[in-house]
């Protein structure tokens, strides 16, 4: 997805994990995805460089869809669709 498409997504949830280092963002994503419905989209905010790779790989393993990432100043917005 393009940055514009990601920015226009309707989000069911935003998880702000910028205050934690690895493995905090991954566990926050894990806990949050359990609270949204199948087909809904959430974003994970993380300032941890490793999260950019870790969360997409985890999502793929768990059968969710990784939609893309937007790099903001000092943090990442990672978009996931729950399957």
């Amino acid at each position: 997805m393009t940055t514009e498409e990601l920015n226009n997504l309707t989000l069911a949830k935003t998880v702000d994990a910028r205050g934690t280092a690895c493995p905090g963002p991954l566990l926050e994503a894990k806990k949050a995805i359990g609270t949204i419905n199948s087909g809904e989209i959430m974003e994970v905010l993380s300032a941890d460089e490793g999260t950019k790779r870790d969360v997409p790989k985890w999502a793929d393993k768990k059968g969710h869809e990784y939609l893309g990432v937007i790099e903001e100043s000092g943090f990442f917005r990672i978009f996931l669709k729950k399957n």
Partner: protein
Amino acid sequence: MDTKKLCLALFSGSVDKLTAAGVILSGAAADDMDVDIYVLMQGARAFRKDIGDNTSKLNMAENAHLKEEFLASLKRLNVKTWVEFFKEAKEITNVRIHICGLAGKIWGGEKLDDFIDLADDIVGIGEYITAATDADMHLFI
């Protein structure tokens, strides 16, 4: 999807290794793994009720002079303590913590109540061998 099993032999009572075990446990929890932890030797000392998160009573097995820098960095980075990591993993996935009977006695722990309440039971080594044999992933820390 099959539930994968992790068997962790937690031998060390070193604060950095306990923290590493906690980080790995978090990954296992994110993956919904089934986890059995066997707490051996100095690991059992760390699980004693009067120790746990009390870092003044925990050593750093290698490069002991770096302990204070390590702990200060954890605090700066808002990283959970090793006990908090273990507790959170137990809340998310199926984690059972078994204290080795011999290790417990070495450090003055005879019964389950002598250890922090994360511990589930006190067992013999046979259970560890069985769990390690059955596991998809086995770690010794």
